[in-house]
Structure formats: structure tokens, C-alpha cells
């Protein structure tokens, strides 16, 4: 299957809807093992990114995602801003000039994104962060047909597994053992992001 410019736009728009709808919940998760701003950060950032998309006349996916990246970088703030921003920015580099992506091309972008998060955050998966959703989702996509797959179930399951992890990075790490039995907020917002992708693809199919 091909991921068109339209699918990518719908991805962002759907992600924004989800961030707005889960704003309070994400901040609540962050309140427990962080500082309670994650939902506000994500909602602020995606709203701005989507406003940008709507005005955007760029006709290639690279430019679209780069514009989103720059907006996320400048509007999210906190730890998640540079991380999501870097992820989108690295992916956009791979998608430069394309108006549609094969699964392979899409995966390349995702690989760059995960690499970007790891470098920016000086983190590995297993540390109870958004990486614990991005890494398994990437692996899944590397081995499954994205259109036919159950992407959002995979993302959800990975997100849920962060509950049992001990935080190693970011604010949650100050909670040490106490961070266990809480879901990581960044993992939750990443789950929402991939759920949005699955829905954007679904719509395309229909």
C-alpha cells in the first residue's frame, strides 16, 4: 500500500483530535510521576501543528512533516517537545520530496525517528519512556503489512507494558521504585499518535 500526502495530513489531524480529547488524562498521568503538564504540552503543540497543516500548501510529505516538526519543537516545550520534534524532523528528512510513501519508505522514516529520539534523549528502550512504544511499533511495522496490521493494538499493548517498568529518564526517574505501577505519559501520547495513524490508514482504505 501507499501512504499518500492525504493520509499523512489525516494522521496529524487525527492525532491532534486525540491529544485534545486526552489532554486532561495525559496530564493526570504526568501528575502521578512527573509535573502534570504533558497533556497541556501535547495539546498545545499538535493544535499549532495542525493549524499549520491546514494553511500549508506544500505538496510533498517531507515538507509537511518538517513543518509539523518545527511547530512541535517550538510549541510543545518540556522534554516531549524536542523528542517528538526531533522524531518528526528526522523522518521528514527521509521523506523529502515524496508525495506518497511505500511501506518501506515509511519504515525508513520511522527508523530515523526512533534513532533521533534515542540520540536526543540519550535513552534506550526499557526506561519507561515514549521509546517503549516507538521501538516495538517500529519493529512491528518492519515485519507486518502496515495496512492489514493491527498497529493500534500493538501500540496499546506496548504502552500498557510501561506500567511495570521503572523510570530511568526524565522527571519520572526521580520517583524511582515509586514510578512502577504508573503508565508513562509519553508512552500514552505515543500510543495515541500510532492509533491516529491506524485510523488515518483505515479511512483511506474505506
Amino acid at each position: 500500500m501507499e501512504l499518500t500526502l492525504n493520509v499523512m495530513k489525516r494522521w496529524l489531524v487525527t492525532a491532534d483530535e486525540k491529544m485534545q480529547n486526552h489532554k486532561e488524562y495525559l496530564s493526570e498521568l504526568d501528575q502521578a510521576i512527573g509535573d502534570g503538564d504533558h497533556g497541556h504540552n501535547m495539546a498545545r503543540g499538535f493544535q499549532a501543528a495542525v493549524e499549520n497543516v491546514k494553511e500549508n500548501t506544500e505538496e510533498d510529505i517531507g515538507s509537511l512533516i518538517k513543518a509539523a516538526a518545527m511547530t512541535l519543537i517550538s510549541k510543545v516545550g518540556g522534554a516531549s517537545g524536542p523528542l517528538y520534534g526531533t522524531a518528526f524532523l528526522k523522518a521528514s528528512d527521509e521523506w523529502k520530496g515524496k508525495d506518497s510513501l511505500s511501506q518501506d519508505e515509511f519504515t525508513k522514516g520511522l527508523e530515523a525517528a526512533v534513532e533521533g529520539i534515542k540520540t536526543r534523549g540519550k535513552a534506550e528502550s526499557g526506561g519507561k519512556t515514549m521509546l517503549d512504544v516507538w521501538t516495538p511499533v517500529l519493529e512491528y511495522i518492519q515485519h507486518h503489512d502496515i495496512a492489514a496490521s493491527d498497529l493500534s493494538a500493538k501500540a496499546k499493548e506496548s504502552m500498557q507494558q510501561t506500567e511495570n517498568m521503572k523510570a530511568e529518564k526524565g522527571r519520572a526517574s526521580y520517583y524511582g521504585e515509586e514510578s512502577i505501577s504508573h503508565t508513562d505519559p509519553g508512552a500514552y501520547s505515543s500510543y495515541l499518535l500510532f492509533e491516529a495513524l491506524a485510523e488515518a490508514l483505515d479511512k483511506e482504505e474505506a
Partner: protein
Amino acid sequence: MKKFINNPEDVVEEMLEGMAAAHSDELRRLPGWNVLVRKDAPLPGKVGLVSGGGSGHEPAHAGYIGENMLDAAVAGEVFTSPAPDQIFEAIKAVDSGSGVLLIVKNFSGDVMNFDMAAEMAAAEGIETAQVVVKDDIAVERKEDRRGTAGTVLVHKIVGTALEEGLNLQEAVELAHHVTSRLGSMGISLSPSTVPASGKPGFTLADDEMELGTGIHGEPGMERKKIQPADAVAEELLDNVTAELDVKNGDDVIVLVNGQGSTPLMELYIVYRKAAQLLFERNISIHKSMVGEYMSSLEMAGCSLTLLKLDDTLKKYVT
């Protein structure tokens, strides 16, 4: 939540407008950016000094703009680190061609955003260096230690030295020298409420205090029954002196910082005991600072910072 605000989303913007208006003789705002800049910056030949972070810690950081201190301060949302483009604007505004030193409190968000800003600056040929302050000794692993009130001493000492013409590399070395001799520990009695969330950041029982909290109310080392001020002062002091290996004959700066709603009266009571103990231990106080230097909205509590001086540092203590 009882606050003098309008819309919770506008607090930072409106605060910055207020600051810029109130202190227009000393600083100016970069139009459209959450950045306040020393009025006469960039100073020819001088390395620029920039700091910043989430808002809610006033007077940090804009209150430290001026001679012998910062050239610019970048304000993020409340308790949320500022974005790289904001920091990049600050860097551009204060760079005189001699480079810019960034003083960053050690929080993942701050470090990453300042990193990205430094990359943006590098792409435009502006030299920067970053020094990360990790003075909060309540966190065990050194690399994870948070930046807290001690950051103000880095601003002051490095700021003074820069005024005397240090270059960027020398300033970095001095800043590292300061941070290697700096330690702080906080203790909180009640939480603050971020306007956007409207809910207190943590909860403590009526007779509890938390030792080792960070400046956003991050968890500390221990919750315990509230103790008399003298015991609190002694516990903070013992922890910090042990960590810094401050001993008989040493010279220190003592900073007792208020977290927000703790009256100055109480800070002086805490200071008094700390000063008595230092005196008994033959550690001499070179300079004392008691007040709200790095607040946490209306959190109740205080922190104690020591900077262990040597001849290099004494030169720059004003």
C-alpha cells in the same frame, strides 16, 4: 486555586509584559519572543550569558538580567522548559561575536531544548557552550541531579567574571569550577498549583514535610513528621556539607532560599541555626543570601545552598 491571573494560558505572556514594562530601564523584550534581554546587549567583545527555564521560579531568571549577571533570560510555560527557537533568539540577541554561554538547570527538557538551540546557533555560525547545573544533592546519581537555587550563584559568579573579559572557554571552565563546589537541598511543607492544571502538584499531611524536593515539587528522599526549624537547618546543612566535604577552615557562601510562601522570618530562623553550626565548626561565611531567589510559585518550603569558595571564586564574589 486562588490566583491573580486572567486566562491560565496567558500567564507567561502577561508576566513578561509586566516585567518588560516595569524594568524598561534595564531590559527589553524581544518582540514576539518570551525572551528578556539586558538593555545594552550585545556588549562588544563580551561573551553573552543566557539562562532560562520554565516560568514560576521568579525572580529567576529574568530578575538576574543585568551587569555582572545574565544578558538574557528565556521563559518557558509554567514549570515547562522553553522551546529551542526561543532560546536561539536569545542567543542571537546577545552574541557580540565572542560566543554565548548557556547556563542550564539539569532537567531532561531543559537540557534537550538548550541542546537543540545550540545546534541551531552552530548552523548559523554562532559559537555556544552549555554548562548544566546539577546542585540538588537529594538525588543520588550525580548525572541525574536537578538544577535548583544554586544556579543563581553560577549566574552571579560567571556573570561577574565575564564582565572582566573572560573568553568562552575560560567561562566554561569557571562555570564548571563553580558547579563542582556547589550543593543544595530543599525541604517542602506544602505544594504549589500550576495555573493550567489548577491542582496542587503533590500532597502532604498536615504534620508532614518532605526532605529533598526539587523546585517543581519533584519527590525528595524522605517524608517525615515536621521538625523544628533548628533540626531542619541542621539536617540540610549536614547533608550539604558532607556532600561538598566542607570542613574546618573552609570559606562558603550560604544561600537560604524561600520556595514561595514561606515568610522571610522563617528563612532567617533557618539561616540563624545554619550560621551557628558553621561557626561552631569553624567554617567561615564569606557571604550570606536569604530570600526568594528561585521560587516555586506558592510552594511552602526552603532550600539551603552552599558554595565552597577558593581564591579563584572569591575574586568574583561581589
